[in-house]
């Protein structure tokens, strides 16, 4: 639905985005993760047709952005910019009405009511924007990006500065949009947020470091990690480190009464490990996957690329 093909962007001598490629399908939420200055906003601006790549191309439903077709392709995109950028002296409804008209929405009144009710702003429609809280402004900016019911949605830090309740409203809305078949690209440096929202994430730091589902990226970087909780035993618990190692694990550590390890065979390993431990006299009280935080994956990938 939207794709970047070997996209680079240079500003003078500075290379902001270097050879980035990915594709986002309908019904998918794609997270762009990276530190400040990693080129996330520049990438989003290129996806949205606000700026053109220095090389490579961005395609919307197969059509590349050019200097001549920017307007017609932008009409198919909803773009939440990094700052809300609302007209403070106009009312909530007036702000949306201008955008509905700019996007040639056939029934602006109905579209505005629909999106304002969806984001729980309908009761504030007559208020001037200057009177709204920061969270409400962010929701209104999101409403503005969605008022024309775009099928491609680009969101630059959509939950930044939002309270948990509002952030949840935004995430719920994104789930609904994904279920409706929209292709959504979300830029964030909040890894927890990315994990909650995105089907796939791309780690960027000027260039693409890795792309994939968060769980797969974890496994790719750290392998499948397992934690086994043990009860006190007649044998010293440290003995079970060797047992687990021989049964098909490496990097085995004992932390209190818990063993943590990386499985040699991610899919078949856990039963064999548990069986070996029990046969060696261990009393197993719990077995669970040990998922490192996405942050750890991210930092490890950055350090692999020499970027931290």
């Amino acid at each position, binding site marked *: 639905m939207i794709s970047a093909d070997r996209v680079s962007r240079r500003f003078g001598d500075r290379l902001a985005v270097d050879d980035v490629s990915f594709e986002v399908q309908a019904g998918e939420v794609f997270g762009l993760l990276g530190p400040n200055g990693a080129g996330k906003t520049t990438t989003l601006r290129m996806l949205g047709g606000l700026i053109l790549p220095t090389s490579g191309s961005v395609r919307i439903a197969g059509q590349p952005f050019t200097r001549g077709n920017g307007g017609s392709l*932008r009409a198919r995109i909803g773009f939440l910019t990094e700052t809300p*950028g609302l007209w403070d*002296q106009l009312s909530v409804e007036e702000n949306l009405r201008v955008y509905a008209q700019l996007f*040639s929405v056939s029934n602006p009144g109905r579209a505005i009511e629909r999106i304002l009710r969806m984001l729980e702003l309908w009761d504030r429609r007559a208020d001037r924007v200057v009177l709204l809280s920061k969270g409400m402004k962010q929701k209104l*900016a999101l409403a503005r990006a969605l008022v024309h019911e775009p099928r491609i949605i680009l969101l630059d830090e959509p939950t930044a500065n939002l309270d948990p309740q509002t952030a949840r409203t935004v995430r719920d809305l994104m789930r609904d949009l994904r279920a409706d078949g929209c292709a959504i690209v979300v830029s964030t440096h909040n890894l927890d947020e990315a994990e909650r929202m995105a089907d796939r994430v791309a780690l960027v730091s000027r260039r693409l470091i890795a792309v994939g589902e968060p769980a797969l990226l974890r496994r790719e970087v750290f392998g499948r990690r397992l934690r086994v909780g043990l009860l006190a035993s007649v044998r010293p618990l440290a003995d079970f480190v060797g047992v687990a190692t021989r049964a098909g694990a490496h990097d085995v550590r004992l932390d209190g009464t818990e063993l943590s390890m990386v499985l040699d065979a991610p899919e078949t390993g856990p039963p064999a490990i548990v069986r070996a431990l029990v046969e060696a006299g261990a009393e197993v009280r719990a077995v669970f996957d040990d998922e490192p935080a996405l942050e750890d994956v991210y930092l490890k990938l950055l350090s692999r690329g020499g970027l931290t």
Partner: protein
Amino acid sequence: MNYNRIRALIGKELREFRANPSVIIPVLIVVIISTILPIVIVVVIPKTTGQSLATDRGMQQALERAAAWMPALANLPPQAAAEAFFFQQFLFVFLIAPVVGAVSLAAYSVVGEKQGRTLEPLLTTPVSTAELLVSKALASFMPALVLEAAGLAAYLALVAAIGSPGVLDVLLTRRTLLLVGVLGPFAALAALQATIAISSRVNDPRSAQQISVFLVMPLIAMFVGQISGAFVVTTGVLALMTAAIGVAWILLVLLSVALFDRETILTRWK
């Protein structure tokens, strides 16, 4: 050009001006001064000092020169002729009002977007650069024109009420119509287009206004030159000036579209 988009943006601009009336204060001041000042000079001062304009030697010489291009003066008594001469000269000040108004509003409308960081979301829409700039130009032009028209109507009403009999008739000529009905609006359009071009290169409305204020200099020079008798701006000269300013406006539209670089605005405006 999509006229629905232009209409939507003009409506937005006008609502913003209404919500922020301070931006029209400069033009209001110019209109009020333009309306009151000639009345004070031509009617109030002579009445309070008891010295008639018509008896002044310099005035008599000016009237003799003016009769060549304002033959109607010859049919008026000396006092009325002096009043008509002055009121006619002060019509030039009404050229300045729409220019000042347009400059003030246009500077606010572009730099205001920049300061409020409202331009990036606008650029995510299908709106083209030309549509955006034309909207801003027309939205600034319309209130300036309305204020000019209101000021002129008040001016003519005061001339009719306070001036000597026959003075108003001398003012209601094709030359006046050309001056305030065509040259004035064209000058305003050219000025605001230049302001928009300047605004896209500076970071606050005051800088844009300060640079744009030079645009009224030629008009002031024309006013001073004519009232001092240095030269006469005849109807033919006015028509030529109107055409020249019209061409300048078109060139300025093209220039402002060229200068309004969307990428630079997005990446360098802070």
